[in-house]
């Protein structure tokens, strides 16, 4: 089954991105496809390579990037939401790309399920 994932919160205020990450990993381990994760609202902050969590905390920016590299997940950051919050090509973490909101609608159209994680 194809799962599209929508994440609407950043890694440091809400649990949404953590839950989405564990869901995505579990889905991939079960043999499902997760072709695209779309980052919207403050979710764009998951793609900020300048973020430096403390050493004893998980680093979701890196974890998402690793998952993308290992499992070929397309991580898309909303261009408009990113511009407002200062997420641009200059500080975009590895594994992410910036594109339009149409990519979210396409994920909804092309996947069997669109799973939403927000606050």
């Amino acid at each position, binding site marked *: 089954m194809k799962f599209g994932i929508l994440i609407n919160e950043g890694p440091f205020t809400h649990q949404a991105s953590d839950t989405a990450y564990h869901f995505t990993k579990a889905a991939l381990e079960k043999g499902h496809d997760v072709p695209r994760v779309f980052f919207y609202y403050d979710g764009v902050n998951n793609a900020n390579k300048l973020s430096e969590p403390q050493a004893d905390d998980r680093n979701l920016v890196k974890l998402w990037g690793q998952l993308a590299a290992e499992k070929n997940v397309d991580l898309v950051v909303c261009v408009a939401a990113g511009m407002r919050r200062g997420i641009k090509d200059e500080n975009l973490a590895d*594994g992410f790309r910036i594109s339009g909101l*149409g990519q979210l*609608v396409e*994920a909804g*159209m092309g996947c069997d399920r669109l799973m939403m994680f927000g606050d």
Partner: protein
Amino acid sequence: MAEYEFETEGVKKTFTFMNRKAPYGTVYALEVLETVLISAAFEQHANIVFADDGVYQLKAGHDTTGIGMKNFSPTFGIIEMEKEDADEDEDIDMVWRIIVEKESMEARGLTADDFKVEVEVLSAAELADIVDASDCVISG
């Protein structure tokens, strides 16, 4: 990273946009409306639903001059125009519904006359059927 290509040719789904938050205190309302407008480019069916404090998004007479924030209320005029185009143009295969949950509206002492655009007022039971029948639910 490899850009994934979805096969979307001829795909027609029903999206429900569930707006449950009051305007201006958070950004959720505005960004959901942006998604609604983008979905029009893909000619997808949409239920644009307002429940709980989300009904205040539709309230006529938003004046944000005192708080210095952008008044997004005019976006509803654009949504209403898109809906009218879809309703009237036979070449556009797209059904849009603007729905307010009756229980949420009445709990806040509002009536359909308080809203900026024309809406369908549906009971929770009627709305439950509509949400249940949709393919994608995007909430804000």
